[in-house]
């Protein structure tokens, strides 16, 4: 009984240290809050930028919902209607697309810099875990949203991903081998990617994921505000600035500037112009599949290794990284910021190389093996 009591006591102690509700006051969270000023201070703005892009996503997403039809027969036509016939529809849709990419980019930078600055260290473990959850939810937003326009690249890329899930079963032992097929069937909803899949992805994209995202975001923001900004560097920062109004002011200026840039991009540069037009034609199950079917750029870090390396190697790597991501505060508990920075640079280099040169590496690799 006493052992159980002490376990309970330890759990309460753990959470009260991580979520110090006694600090929940205007003074502590706003007026007395200080932000350290040092060479990595710019990284403190990345979380705010991610939030800005999420807000743009939410507002433009609601506008798109007014016209979007989640049926395989009308989805593509409704997207075309939004783009070419609804007033400012093109702008809203392009803003949604551009800001989704910007959101993922900012989130990745935010995660990498938070890692390098050791912002996950005690008592900020929950901040890191909720952030990791937000990263996964954001990728899920990207994956589910990609299918909704029901064009060639969307449906075919989704098929490839779902096929990969099923393939994972080949490497699992015994009864576990059927689990991926089961998961695939749940996601897909029918024998092939079709109406059931679209309905599921639509429900996930507009209802389930936003609800989960709000929950995780609430926990993340509360945790950040309760603990304040992390120290970020080894030596204590010589200078600091007030969170309110100075940091907030700079944050808003940055938001305004970034919004302006994204707005100009959305107005002048259709995101789809970076891809070949056959990829954006309505999906035709009986027609030919166009060249260049690929997932969105933010999945290249996973897509190209899948194309080059044996499937099990990538799956194993992905499984370890996913678990590792949530365990970061405990794995790197005693690691210095210098070492963390080196690891962060390696991760960033890998992501950049795979995103920009993945195709080239794939071609070189394919060429040498054909």
């Amino acid at each position, binding site marked *: 009984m006493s052992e159980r009591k002490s376990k309970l006591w330890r759990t309460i102690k753990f959470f009260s240290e991580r979520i110090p509700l006694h600090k929940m006051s205007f003074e502590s969270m706003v007026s007395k809050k200080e932000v350290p000023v040092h060479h990595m201070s710019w990284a403190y703005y990345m979380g705010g930028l991610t939030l800005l892009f999420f807000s743009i996503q939410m507002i433009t997403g609601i506008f798109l919902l007014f016209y979007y039809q989640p049926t395989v027969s009308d989805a593509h036509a409704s997207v075309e209607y939004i783009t070419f016939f609804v007033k400012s529809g093109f702008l809203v849709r392009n803003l949604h697309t551009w800001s989704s990419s910007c959101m993922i980019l900012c989130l990745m930078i935010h995660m990498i810099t938070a890692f390098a600055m050791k912002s996950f260290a005690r008592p900020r473990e929950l901040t890191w875990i909720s952030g990791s959850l937000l990263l996964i939810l954001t990728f899920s937003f990207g994956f589910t949203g990609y299918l909704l326009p029901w064009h060639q690249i969307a449906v075919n890329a989704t098929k490839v991903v779902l096929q990969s899930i099923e393939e994972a079963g080949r490497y699992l032992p015994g009864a576990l081998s059927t689990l991926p097929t089961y998961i695939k069937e749940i996601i897909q909803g029918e024998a092939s990617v079709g109406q059931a899949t679209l309905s599921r992805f639509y429900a996930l994209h507009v209802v389930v994921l936003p609800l989960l995202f709000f929950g995780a975001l609430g926990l993340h923001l509360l945790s950040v505000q309760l603990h304040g900004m992390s120290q970020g560097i080894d030596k204590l920062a010589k200078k600091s600035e*007030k969170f309110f109004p100075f940091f907030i*002011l700079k944050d808003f200026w940055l938001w305004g500037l970034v919004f302006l840039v994204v707005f100009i991009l959305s107005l002048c540069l259709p995101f789809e*112009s970076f891809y070949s037009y056959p990829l954006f034609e309505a999906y035709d199950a009986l027609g*030919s599949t166009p060249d*260049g079917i690929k997932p969105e750029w933010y999945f290249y870090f996973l897509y190209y290794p899948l194309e080059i390396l044996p499937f099990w190697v990538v799956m194993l790597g992905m499984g370890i990284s996913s678990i590792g991501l949530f365990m970061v505060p405990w794995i790197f508990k005693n690691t210095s910021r210098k070492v963390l920075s080196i690891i962060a640079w390696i991760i960033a280099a890998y992501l950049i190389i795979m995103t920009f040169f993945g195709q080239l590496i794939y071609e070189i690799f394919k060429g040498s093996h054909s």
Partner: protein
Amino acid sequence: MKALFILGILVFMYCSSVFAHPEFQRYSKEVSGRSINCAMCHMHSDGPVGLKPGQIGSLNQDELNALGLARQAFKPGSGAKSPILNEFGNVIVEQLGKEKILMIKQRPELLVESLSKTSDLDSDGITDVEEFKDGTHPLNSLDGHPWKLFKNNLLKNWFHILMLGLATGCGLYGLYNALLWLAMKARREE
């Protein structure tokens, strides 16, 4: 019935040899490095042969008659509109005539020199000829070489951008002062 079926197949074979010009598609793909398909000139992305909308097998009697007339458009300026071609495809036939198209089939680069240098069917600021070379769709204003599209749209929308810049600046200036006022008020109350 059997005779009709054979006739249908013969019509299919004849039409596909006459109307599909993959040489131009291959050329555009080579010079642009982009993946393109028959939808650049045809109504259907899989080309003229088949039973889907915009393909020969789906045409009604009136459309078949129009197709017959278009097939006879050997000289430029015939005004014939082929139901299996899109606007760009029909413009090519109109400007060059089928005779020339068949002549330059083996040297598709000549198509670029032969077409009008000013025609821009989708009004995106990039001419059809440039779009053909860039491997982008001449009838889709959102599809074009990214840099060219950006430049043209920036020039087209400069007033909106200027106004938005002003609005953002004014909004931020107002917010800046509002927050400073709030901070001062909070300090005074302390």
